[in-house]
């Protein structure tokens, strides 16, 4: 199956290992991957901050880069959700709106794609650890994806998933929120970190690098030695 990978800007700049793991997992599952060259960022930072015009500029770039793809896969619930927002950006421009719609429809978050499209729930990963999972808000509420990551993690050998108190509460990232509303964001991430600590997990897993960057950044600052992994890194650990 031919799939196009949208790496996402955070993974491209900071977390190349995550991107590599995504490639390797998908290849193992029989996908033929291409990396459209024109890809940059989904535009969410501008969109969520009220800079619609600049978001449209980014959206056009993504649409043009990905419209020939069969499937578009992003290892981020949040960026995937942004792709799904694209049609709404072009209410005054029917031509672009149709193109945006076509792109939105074939875009999947990484775990969603594996479970719902490839129909795979066990990728053969082995990861002996006690872990807890952070459900990112955009995956949960915008994509309404509540199952795929759990199905995949449940089948990882040796991995024990511990419940996370108030897992539905936001970690306080929220893109520019994290830098615009520092005192509030701080309290939110602190509560999240407290709950993660209380879960007694050794490793925190999530499917969004934004949340992980925030939570890890805070745990590192506080000297809390809990490991942080993107779900692709877990799924690409074989033994």
């Amino acid at each position: 199956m031919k799939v196009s990978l949208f790496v996402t800007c955070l993974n491209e700049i900071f977390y190349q290992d995550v991107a590599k793991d995504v490639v390797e997992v998908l290849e193992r599952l029989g996908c033929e991957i291409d990396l459209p060259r024109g890809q940059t960022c989904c535009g969410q930072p501008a969109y969520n901050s009220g800079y619609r015009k600049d978001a449209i500029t980014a959206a056009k770039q993504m649409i043009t880069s990905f419209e020939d793809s069969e499937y578009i896969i992003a290892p981020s619930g949040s960026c995937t959700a942004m792709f799904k927002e694209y049609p709404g950006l072009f209410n005054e421009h029917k031509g672009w709106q149709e193109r945006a719609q076509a792109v939105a429809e074939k875009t999947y978050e990484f775990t969603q794609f594996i479970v719902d499209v490839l129909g795979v729930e066990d990728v053969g990963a082995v990861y002996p650890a006690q872990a807890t999972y952070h459900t990112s808000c955009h995956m949960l509420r915008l994509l309404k994806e509540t199952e795929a990551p759990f199905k995949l993690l449940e089948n990882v050998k040796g991995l024990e998933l511990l419940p996370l108190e108030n897992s539905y509460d936001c970690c306080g990232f929220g893109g520019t929120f994290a830098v615009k509303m520092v005192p509030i964001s701080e309290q939110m991430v602190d509560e999240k970190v407290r709950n993660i600590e209380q879960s007694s997990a050794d490793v925190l897993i999530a499917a969004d690098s934004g949340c992980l960057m925030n939570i890890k950044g805070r745990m590192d600052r506080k000297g809390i030695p809990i490991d942080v992994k993107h779900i692709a890194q877990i799924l690409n650990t074989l033994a």
Partner: protein
Amino acid sequence: MPMKIGEKPFFGRVDDALQDHFMRNAMASAQDRFRNKKLDATERDEQVGDWEEWRSAGEEIRRHTLENLDFYLDQLSENFSKRGGHVFFAKTVEEANRYIQKVAKEKDAKYVTKSKSMVTEEIGLNEALEEVGCHVYETDLAEYILQIDNKDRPSHIVVPSLHKNKEQIRDTFQAKAGYTGTEEPHELTAFARSQLREVFLKADIGITGCNFAIAESGTISLATNEGNANMVTTYPDTQITVMGMERLVPTWEELDVLINLLSRSAVGQKITTYVTNLTPGVEEDCVDAPKEFHLVILDAGRSNALGTEFQSALHCIRCAACVNVCPVYRHIGGHAYGSIYQGPIGAVLSPILGGYEEYGELPFASSLCAACTEACPVKIPIHELLIKHREKYVNHQENVKTSEKLAMKAFGVGTSTPFLFQIAVKGAPMFMKPLIKDGSISNGPGPMKPWTAIREFPAPGKDNFRSWFKEHQKGRQ
């Protein structure tokens, strides 16, 4: 401005709130409680069936009503007047207060009782009535507590005194009302009840808000739990109801749906203890109904939203489900919003009613986690409305720093020009290198500063993913 709470700027209010540990614990445990009660009475209640269908029905009713607002307001007003009620349309807060003052003066009213109403908080009615010599008594327990505590302000639209615990309430009762008992809730309630009994009996005017007005019959519907609204509306000879102009339903059938949505979402009840429906016009010898019934229908900025992208904000039925799941409200509580309308819907409504100058920061005080949108029983896309506010806000040159605008411009150019984006990606490790210590950045300059104020900023990865991918693909061929 009566809608406004506190004088400090936004971040000052947030700081105050964050230091109030009691309040924050109270908010967090109240949220956890409310959230579960709501789920038990909605998604998890078998009697409900498909809760999503109920939400869609609610959304449809509210949309239809707002799209035909003129028609239903006419109908309501006609039916209310036909039965002998008096209707007054108030364009502004001042007009509403002047009208009510006039009625109070005509009746030579000394004592006024009130049941819980956010809209009378919005217009600052108590002060307006005091100006014309009335003694105003809040009779909803939570509002009563706030009133005797030096007119403290509401921190939650359904439970206005959520920020107070029973010990604080005991102290207030002792200091202000001669209470001598303990902090036992039953004892406190019994005391308030006995105080209020006397007041009910001597009231000249009873004032209520309005959960829904039913257009087809000219009826006001109130959903309450304490029964005080019934006392407020049966003893005095004159009743005044103040309603926001959007708070109506076409017929009793829609009322049924919305009362369900409201009770279940607000307090996790199948139905509130009382649903009181009041229509003007009584039989000659009726002794337990007011002789005169005034309905004040308030605009006060609501029509700013009509016909705009914000119209759905007027669909709100004030259940506070969005407030109860908001992670921002959880930590800063109600007063930090600086408005009597708090939480996510407060951040949407307050700027519509009171303008950006006063409430411009509120739409930014959200991580856009969409918990509000998910919780709303009438499916208002609250987090999307917050983004729309942000768009309008940043479009006014004077509102934002030039540096932010430039950064966003650069973002637009960078993301639409792949080779520039690649320069940024490739250059990041080099640019950031001097800042990195032990694998991360602890004290970043410029735009990184607020991030590193509380967290580590990651060092950019050393490899270039696209080069790796190229090699990797070659290897596979």
